[in-house]
């Protein structure tokens, strides 16, 4: 394997594993604030118990996000030094701001949120939960600003020594791509949070344990879920897709498997892209829909891969096609599931409807898959560029770090993350098994360390 491929896999593996945790952190942080708000408004102690239960899962999840997150920033320097050197003056800024404005905030109030409930008033504790939520969403914003500049560079100039500089900080933060991507990503995080919450609730209801809390989890999870699943597609996904079609036509053509430009372009629901024959094998397609989705008219012409020089095609192209279809397919399933669940909830029969609780229980892995597939679509779609149209990925990696060294650390991360996964699953399962406190069982005393 050559060094470029290994550096790509190195980043892809560590970022994919990392993002399994922040998506739940950001989604759950919002839902915990919601639980605490209901607790205060209705003076309902069960909602406080629910919030405390989720805080325990949040704590472990947050820890895993922190320890797997530190390698991310540092990899820009270690594995992608040429990219870091030329673009640090632009994207180093939002990355540093994430540390200064988000991580300090989170680290300060997480301790108070997790252990300080006795030390402050109900509103004080609500504020701590809110600030943790705010910190995690600010963090997401700066990361999206960084990524959006790589997807769609704005407000930059090139200095005489070949490095990039930001010309308008305001425009960097207001990159239209960033705003669309942020809305889409955050909505995706809420989907993960709400699916996990309703899954645990459905588990309790089907097991007939902690049923009272199970109902709260399902109710909050389904209400948040139905809103987030719809906004994920419309407007955020729709607008993001159209903007992408305008600025990254190669990516959209590859995602949709459109090898030749055509009027009334079809949408391929399923199939296998064949790069040699330049067609989709075994396609199931609906005519005209792609033109309509992008341009609002069935007759519009959509640019295909035939208009794009071969060396500018995203790679690996079939993977991009699949990740996009997995994301879109799961997104459609999410809407169906949550709309049905919300309808049953409105009718007051959801908690007894076992055929609806089962899919709620079993669906929690899918948002993780969909969010991962969505990010793979964005990142593979940007290829072969590390900064779209400006710097090729093959020009960005660390020339002095050999393939052997990159493989060494990649294997190290794989081993370490395997252990982390096992620890995470064991500890979260224990928390779910112990259940919220009011179920009659008392969990063992927690440590007073920050994230215990």
């Amino acid at each position, binding site marked *: 394997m050559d060094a470029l491929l290994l550096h790509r896999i190195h980043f892809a593996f560590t970022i994919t594993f990392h993002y399994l945790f922040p998506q739940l952190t950001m989604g759950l942080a919002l839902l915990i604030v919601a639980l605490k708000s209901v607790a205060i408004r209705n003076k309902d102690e069960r909602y406080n118990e629910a919030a*405390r239960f989720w805080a325990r899962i949040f*704590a*472990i999840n947050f*820890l895993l996000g*922190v*320890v797997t997150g*530190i390698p991310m920033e*540092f990899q820009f*320097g270690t*594995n992608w*030094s*040429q990219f*870091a050197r030329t673009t*640090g*003056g*632009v*994207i*180093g*800024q939002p990355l*540093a*701001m*994430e*540390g*200064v404005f988000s*991580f*300090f*905030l989170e*680290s*300060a*109030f997480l*301790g*108070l949120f997790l*252990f300080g*409930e*006795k*030390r402050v008033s109900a509103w004080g504790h609500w504020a701590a939960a809110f600030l943790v939520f705010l910190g995690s969403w600010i963090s997401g914003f700066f990361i999206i600003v960084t990524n959006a500049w790589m997807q769609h560079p704005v407000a930059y100039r090139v200095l005489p020594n070949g*490095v990039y*500089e*930001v010309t308008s*900080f305001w425009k960097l933060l207001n990159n239209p791509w960033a705003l669309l991507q942020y809305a889409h990503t955050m909505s995706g995080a809420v989907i993960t949070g709400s699916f996990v919450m309703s899954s645990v609730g459905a588990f309790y209801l089907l097991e007939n344990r902690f049923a009272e809390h199970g109902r709260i989890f399902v109710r909050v999870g389904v209400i948040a879920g139905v809103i987030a699943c719809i906004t994920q597609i419309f407007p955020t996904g729709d607008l993001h897709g159209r903007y992408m079609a305008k600025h990254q036509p190669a990516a959209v053509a590859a995602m949709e498997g459109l090898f030749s430009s055509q009027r009334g372009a079809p949408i391929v629901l399923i199939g296998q892209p064949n790069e040699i024959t330049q067609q989709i094998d075994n396609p199931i397609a609906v005519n005209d829909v792609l033109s309509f989705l992008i341009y609002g008219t069935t007759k519009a012409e959509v640019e295909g891969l035939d208009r794009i020089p071969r060396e500018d095609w995203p790679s690996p192209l079939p993977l991009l096609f699949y990740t996009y279809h997995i994301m879109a397919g799961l997104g459609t399933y999410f809407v169906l599931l949550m709309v049905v669940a919300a309808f049953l909830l409105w009718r007051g029969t959801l908690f007894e409807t076992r055929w609806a609780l089962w899919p709620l229980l079993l669906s929690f892995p899918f948002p993780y898959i969909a969010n991962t597939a969505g990010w793979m679509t964005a990142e593979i779609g940007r290829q072969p560029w590390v900064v779209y149209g400006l710097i090729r990925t093959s020009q960005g990696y660390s020339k*002095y*770090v050999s393939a052997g060294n990159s493989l*060494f*650390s990649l294997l*190290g991360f794989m081993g*370490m993350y395997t252990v*982390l996964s096992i*620890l995470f699953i064991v*500890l979260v399962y*224990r928390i779910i098994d112990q259940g919220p*406190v009011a179920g009659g069982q008392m*969990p*063992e005393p*927690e*440590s*007073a*360390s*920050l*994230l*215990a």
Partner: protein
Amino acid sequence: MGFIWFWLVAIMLVAYVVLDGFDLGVGILHVLLARTERERQIMIRSIGPVWDGNEVWLVAGGGTIYFAFPLLYASAFSGFYLALMIVLWLLIMRGIAVELRMKIEAGVWRSFFDGLFFISSALLAIFYGAALANVIRGVPLQADGYFFLPLWTNWTIGPHPGILDWYTVIGGLVALVALAVHGALYLAVKTEGELQLRARTSVRSMWAALFLLTVVSLIASMIARSDTLTNYKNHPIAFAIPLVVLLSLLGILYFSRKTADRSAFACSCAYLAAMLVGAAVGLYPRLLPASTDPSYDITTAKALSGPHTLHVGLIWWSFGMVLAVGYFVFVYRMFRGKVTLCTGGYEH
């Protein structure tokens, strides 16, 4: 601008070493000082609410280097690749050990994380010390601004050194002992009874080693880099810094004997800060000197970002630092006083 950002980055790294330094020190002493499960819990709790925030100084400092001196970030991080990857793994293990130790009440589980906490903290201290020594000694920079160092070669300071050679190993040992002392003094402030007594005693037994290693490292630095003292000779006022090192070292011993734990800890903070500032004064305006050819040195002028980036950066950075300091005052006030085992946790 180069001068300003050089010192802003230096301040952030000093803050990181002084703050996370005592977390690492507590980790180094964790298996040595605590005799009972209760004492081990108290030691972990003494840093529990703060270690994460302390570590943010590293992340924020790294980010600041990234946008203010992109060339330094790119060159140093890729050149020290193997060491940095190991540091990242150690940071992961340290965080996991601190937080997951208490999750399951089983002797084997807890002993495992105790060991992990000790090993990761001790190795981190050694790697940090060695890293600073590498910067002082210089690295084999090429004309394109890059280099790559193996972990070790023949352990000597030649044209092709390893990350570890006799000089950087001394740097690692200084950091190990200095942070252990720092951690012991922090524990003396935060604990009571037997544990506190043991922490104070350990300071006295480590102090001679620290003193000796400090002197050796200062002499070794002049051997490793003959021009270390150039800035000092041009600005004799800078010799106040080694004086602070000496005085604060003596202060550690003096106040520790008088059981004035807070003053002793303050001296330890001053010692760490003065050691780092002293190194920074010796380096300026170089960020990463070359062992190959002085014209390949990465200097502030060579690595500095564009003017608009730095101008905007200065505005939000100042604002952000005010907030950050505010959070730290808040957190340390919240968790001030001696650690006890009955506070914290969830209400039941």
